[in-house]
């Protein structure tokens, strides 16, 4: 059982972002959301640690409460 890592694990974070963007380029919001759901399952399995997954869900829910005007 580990702790969720929130410091950057990547030497080149821009490359990570662009990889994730490229994966959804040209998709509708619905298709991208479905892609994200599959990605969540794949990555959750890869992490293989229920405690870390619970912490990640907690963080994602908490940060979602801020309501940005950004977006359509």
């Amino acid at each position, binding site marked *: 059982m580990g702790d969720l890592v929130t410091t950057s694990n990547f030497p080149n974070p*821009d490359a990570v972002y662009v990889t994730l963007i490229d994966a*959804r*380029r040209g998709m509708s919001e619905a298709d991208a959301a479905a892609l994200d759901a599959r990605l969540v399952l794949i990555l959750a399995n890869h992490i293989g640690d229920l405690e870390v997954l619970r912490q990640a869900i907690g963080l994602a829910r908490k940060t979602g409460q801020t309501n940005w005007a950004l977006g359509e």
Partner: protein
Amino acid sequence: MADGRKAIYHYGYRRSPDQDARKPVRHPVIVVGAGPVGLTAAIDLALRGVPVVLLDDADRIGEGSRGICYSKRTLEILDRLGVGSDLVRQGVTWKLGKVYLGDDLVYSFDLLPEDGHKMPAFINLQQYYLEKALVERAREIDAVDLRWNNRVSGLDRRSDGVTLTINTPDGPYRLDAAWLIAADGARSTVRGLLGLGFEGVTFEDKFLIADVKMAADFPTERRFWFDPPFHSGQSALMHRQPDNVWRIDLQLGPDVDVDVEQKPDRVVPRLKKMLGERPFELEWVSIYRFNCRRLARFVHGRVIFAGDSAHQVSPFGARGANSGVQDAENLAWKLAAVLSGDAGEALLESYNLERIQSADENIAHSTRSTDFIAPHSPAERALRNAVLNLARRCDFARRMVNSGRLSVATIYDSPLTTPDEDFFAGSAYLGAPVPDAPVRTRSGRDGFLVEQLTGTFELMHMMNRARSNPPPGIKMTVIGEDLHDYAGLVAKRLDATPGATYLLRPDQHLCARWRAFDPEKIAAAYARALTR
């Protein structure tokens, strides 16, 4: 520069004796376009002994700051050409960037966290001041023949050069050039005459760019906002320039009417939301869409493209004018070496390779930044907003927040470079400009390493015992004898041990290094750097 902008500085057309010649007069080099790139190329070539005819289709330097951020490497180049220090004095020096989400600071960066460099990380300066300084410098040099109101209208290619048709107020004339440098900007006439197209992407979002004159005590930092309270749902950028002028970029989204949004009755209320009741004057306003694209090749026989005529990026990262000036310096020494017979034409292929590598790096950074600032679709916006939401709490997300990654010199992966045989630590990289460091000259004057490098091939040798002689054609500087490394930073940054020897190209890029002085290896590396 002929695009309807108001003149800031006016220069006169003068008839050239070439216009009275019966046959086209032949020149070794003609440069088209007297912007920062063309002027840099012309001055650098002239200082290397190559006479240059520099043509510009206008007779003035136009209004509008346009480019404003000049990077450390560009300033080092301009310093070698004789204008860098004056520009630094005239400009606004900065190195800190801050990124806000709404009102909250989430990310900040320092572009030059160490001391001991002559040039700052960046200066901000209106482009017309840079152009004016370069025009004045060019006029001091007899070998630059600057011809205003000379508009290229035709181009015939030959195996040994080109023949241009040039329109002037006195009518057309023709000129021959062994080499033509096309530094005539994003809407390059020369590119059009050759029928060459770009490869790359155009972004749909429009950006309002305004230069505003006002008394304000905002910090001298690059400040970028995502979703600021004064410009909800979009991004904003603010930069300080000299003369109490501030550059403001406001993202407008993809659907706005460009003609309507440029009108003061639309622009002023937008700016008031940002600036409050503080009085300001509008100096210059424009609306842009950005391109990230380049020519497939920059060298087309005897025609060579440099700057915006060859590649374009969005402004996030200050990679446009800076990369253009770096194109010009890369090309100048190589073309001079070809014209003097020191190198064959094959050397120019390394300009193509090195500057395409740099353009691709700039395009990749600029595309990523623009993708982040202006997502292409709701699906992409959702991911971008997720990063912004997480950035308040998580380091990993802050590092993905991308408001522009600022221009640094490319580390060339070049055939001109001799691979290392020995391990070197430090901050010097093969294929990159040598890092600057404080030094003291023989006469006891304090200065900097880079300013001592005069634009020829240079061998830097760390004194250990008897002085050795460099191969012909190379100037040698012995650290510890010719220059004193009083702060120890030359040794630290170059990981220089006694006897260590460094070969620098005329553009101050490191192309070979060894732990000991070996004349044969030096001669081989020198030949390689000239593609001999």
